[in-house]
């Protein structure tokens, strides 16, 4: 079967699966939209509905404590028919968003940047998977499917991140900048991905063109696209200002992400920490947590200068664990993205314990949440313990992937060391 047919079959079956779940269980999306594991206060579909309701009645949704999402989502969703009465249109939008994301992932895999970039070529490149397999890993990832059904707005951020990465990997700088600026505007954390993606884009462009890559070239490239990126974000903010005619959305949207006023449980580490935090230390630890999350970006970008795509993947992993409002959708994106690095899987050491701890959390998390919130036979520590294990499992996978990629890199330098015991000094 040729690739196009495979792709059509894959995309068709993924869309059919989602639409089947949407239509066969009409109450399932609303149940999932209420799950704290899938929707967070900054992405929840129910809150989007509330914002939309207020927006359509000319009440500012940002003058309230319910809607903490982007202003541009409001006109987009008010074009669609009412999601309560005609849910199909909204469902189709989310299915299409997933398919577009999967298409971008296929393009990334097709370029082969994961195994061989401008400055680095893996010795295990023959192990790479076909792009259809990687896209299937994304489209049939249960975390991604559930997230699509729960319809949080983070789905659009994920699609835009994948699009931005695929554009950067193919050297289409303008669309890459646009997609990433839009993603950062929606969720703030994609800002972290800008430096590695810029490197990826630069590598892609300079390996495509015959011109010499010099320091001055790199510098002008960086300055041009950085300013373009921030100009796009400023333009989006101005557009939002024009739509809502007040700057209150900055407060309601971005400060809500930064200062974590909403302590609704999620799978991350922040909510319980700041529930139990002493008031006088709250500001200090908020600073520490943000600094901690930011610290990975420069470190990974410098160490993996030759493999910028892996930096993007690792940063997605960091975000899925250390972001203020993570959901399982972020973890699903990270795990599916990791599928592009199939060639380093044999080098990973703790795959089995880490994956089993994730499975354990997937099953026990909802159960313990039920015990705490509904049955009343457990307390908050039950769910908190599960989020700790979940974060630990993802951290182990992340650290293990970094180890494997480093080892792979080292084996290019020392081909004789393949399969031998190593030590780090």
């Amino acid at each position, binding site marked *: 079967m040729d690739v196009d047919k495979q792709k059509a079959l894959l995309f068709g079956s993924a869309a059919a699966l989602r639409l089947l779940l949407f239509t066969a269980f009409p109450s399932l999306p609303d149940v999932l939209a*209420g799950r*704290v594991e899938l929707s967070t206060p900054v992405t929840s579909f129910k809150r989007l509905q509330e914002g939309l309701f207020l927006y359509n009645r000319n009440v500012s949704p940002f003058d309230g*404590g319910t809607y903490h999402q982007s202003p541009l989502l409001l006109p987009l969703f008010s074009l669609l028919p009412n999601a309560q009465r005609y849910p199909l249109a909204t469902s189709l939008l989310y299915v299409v968003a997933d398919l577009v994301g999967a298409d971008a992932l296929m393009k990334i895999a097709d370029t082969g940047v994961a195994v061989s970039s401008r400055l680095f070529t893996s010795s295990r490149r023959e192990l790479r998977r076909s792009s259809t397999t990687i896209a299937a890993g994304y489209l049939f990832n249960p975390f991604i499917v559930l997230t699509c059904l729960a319809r949080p707005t983070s789905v659009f951020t994920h699609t835009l991140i994948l699009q931005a990465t695929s554009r950067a990997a193919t050297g289409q700088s303008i669309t890459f900048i646009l997609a990433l600026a839009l993603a950062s505007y929606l969720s703030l954390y994609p800002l972290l991905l800008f430096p590695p993606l810029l490197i990826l884009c630069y590598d892609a462009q300079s390996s495509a063109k015959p011109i010499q890559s010099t320091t001055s070239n790199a510098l002008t490239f960086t300055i041009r696209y950085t300013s373009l990126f921030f100009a796009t974000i400023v333009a989006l903010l101005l557009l939002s200002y024009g739509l809502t005619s007040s700057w209150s959305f900055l407060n309601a949207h971005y400060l809500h992400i930064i200062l974590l006023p909403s302590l609704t449980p999620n799978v991350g580490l922040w909510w319980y920490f700041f529930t139990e935090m002493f008031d006088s230390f709250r500001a200090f630890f908020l600073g520490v947590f943000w600094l901690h999350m930011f610290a990975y970006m420069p470190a990974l970008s410098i160490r993996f200068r030759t493999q910028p795509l892996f930096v993007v993947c690792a940063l997605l992993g960091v975000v899925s664990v250390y972001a203020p409002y993570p959901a399982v959708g972020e973890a699903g994106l990270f795990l599916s993205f990791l599928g592009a690095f199939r060639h380093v899987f044999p080098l990973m050491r703790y795959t089995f314990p880490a994956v089993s701890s994730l499975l354990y959390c997937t099953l026990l998390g909802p159960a313990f949440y039920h015990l705490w919130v509904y049955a009343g036979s457990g307390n908050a520590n039950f769910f908190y313990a599960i989020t700790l294990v979940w974060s630990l499992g993802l951290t182990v996978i992340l650290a293990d992937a970094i180890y494997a990629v480093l080892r792979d890199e080292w084996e290019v330098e020392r081909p004789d060391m393949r399969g031998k015991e190593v030590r780090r000094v």
Partner: protein
Amino acid sequence: MFFSFLLCLFFTSLAYGSDYRERLLLRPLPHGALLASFNFQSNASSTSFEQQNFRYFPRSLGQILQHTHTKELHLRFSLGRWDAEAWGARPWNGAREGGTGVELWAWVEAASDKEANARWLTLTNALSGLFCASLNFIDSTRTIRPVMTFEPEGSHPPNALGNLHLLHGNLPHEVVCTENLTPFLKLLPCKGKAGISSLFDGHKLFDASWQTMAIDVRPVCTGDGSECVLEMEQTVDMVLDIERSKRPRDNPIPRPAPIEDIRCDESKFYNSHDSCMPLAKSTEPAWSLQDVFGRQISGACPLSDANDAERVICVNAVPERTFEIRSGAAQRVAEQVAPDMRCTALPSGPEEGLDFDLLFSDQPLTPPVNLTRPRLHAFRSMTGHGQERGGIEAVLRNPLSQPVSLVYMESLPWFMKPYLHTLNVAVSGNGNRDFQALKETYYRPAVDRERGTHIELLLEIPASSTLTLSYDFDKAILRYTEYPPDANRGFDVAPAVIRLLPNAADIASTSADERQKGVYLRTTDLLLPLPTPDFSMPYNVIILTSTVMALGFGSIFNLLVRRFVAADEVEGATLRARIAGLKERFRSKLQSIWARHSGKGEKDQ
């Protein structure tokens, strides 16, 4: 100057001779309940008020009102629930009652919203001190500015209305108790020593099935607005369970009556010497003021208006229900002022003895007084289960054969986040499915830790129909320091306030004053359980979360900053190599010691 002042004083006292009056209405209700409705009214002319010349108007409250520029004030302390099914319409049409806990609303004169908020803050803090209540906890999260529900009761000059700000706050969690009654009594001219206020005993008052204390201050002007007085009305309404109130204070535990006193239903097949189905009571219980309130009235308040003395105490019961008046040594007979209303005066001088009591005897059941039916029944409850989200359902039933328009107001705490898009208003009954009951909506969403939600709905219910109003909400999880000590009890949500708008028939039948006061009813308050964290382990959480973060940071940065080498390239890396190295070092050490030793020996030789 002084002469003109005296003259002015003379005229005002002439114009407003009735500066203080008090009333007590007793209405026996079905099932052995008794409504006692106390009302005290004192006036101060606005000129004397402005000159801080207080006579009956309490100085403590007057100075607070002046300092905070409060033009009209309504303060309520309430507990219990009015059972409209059994007790009929509310006293004063609900205009003198509040929601459970404390409710306060006032018109404050200020040039801007900011100034109004500052004055409101001063007002709540000052009243908090005056009434020994936690009114100072009415902060911005519990304050709203109602738009449709309340209208000023007093007559304010039309040019001042633009600067008047209405602020409303409530404290549903506040437990109203004796410490609030003492300051309330101190505001009265006779301070509970004489007059009907001598009946107030905290033990009985707060033991009532339903109780509300109200303080209302409003300016009242004559028709042309030339002369104004500041009227202060203090009201106490309560429904007492007569049986319960008659229990002696030193032995308040209810005990079963001796078996000889119980009349059994002998038609029951199981009736025997040791099993009994008590018959329903066929007599009205005997009671006196002494029994029910624990005290007698000690004479009339000498400061009250003499013209009004004949109608101080009124009993609203059918004429068949007889009672005896014991007023010192003198004989008194109640005056029949209306078919169902008998009134009497209080003894005013020491010559006839001051003690006053009403004695109701045990007598066969009389037909109950014709209770006015309420114009609306309202119930509000929470739906759903669990501590994550829930719903509110309010059922408003219109029993009358004409439509009723009303304003429904809710003031919700910020941690209860309603979804207005789920608001559903449905009318059932009379086949009007498509009836648009919701006419207008005012909605101000909550902001976390800054202000609460404010919803006002203008609704219309068709004749003999039921309106069901529902919406969903989410519960927020709070910081652990924001929970009260009894966190698992839940949080109180203030009652909904419902104002019935007058229809054409009412406007014809009621007086202007009643219209100005309005017709209100309030639902009961709700208990909102929130998810709670574990309060015992902030340190554990900080340590465990930090450990996970340190583990991630440590392992990733450890990988990033180190480089790989082959195991066999490192010296002393493997265990065997390390043991070999140790052996080698040991051997060389021994050799060097041996060499030194032997060298020494050679030297010695």
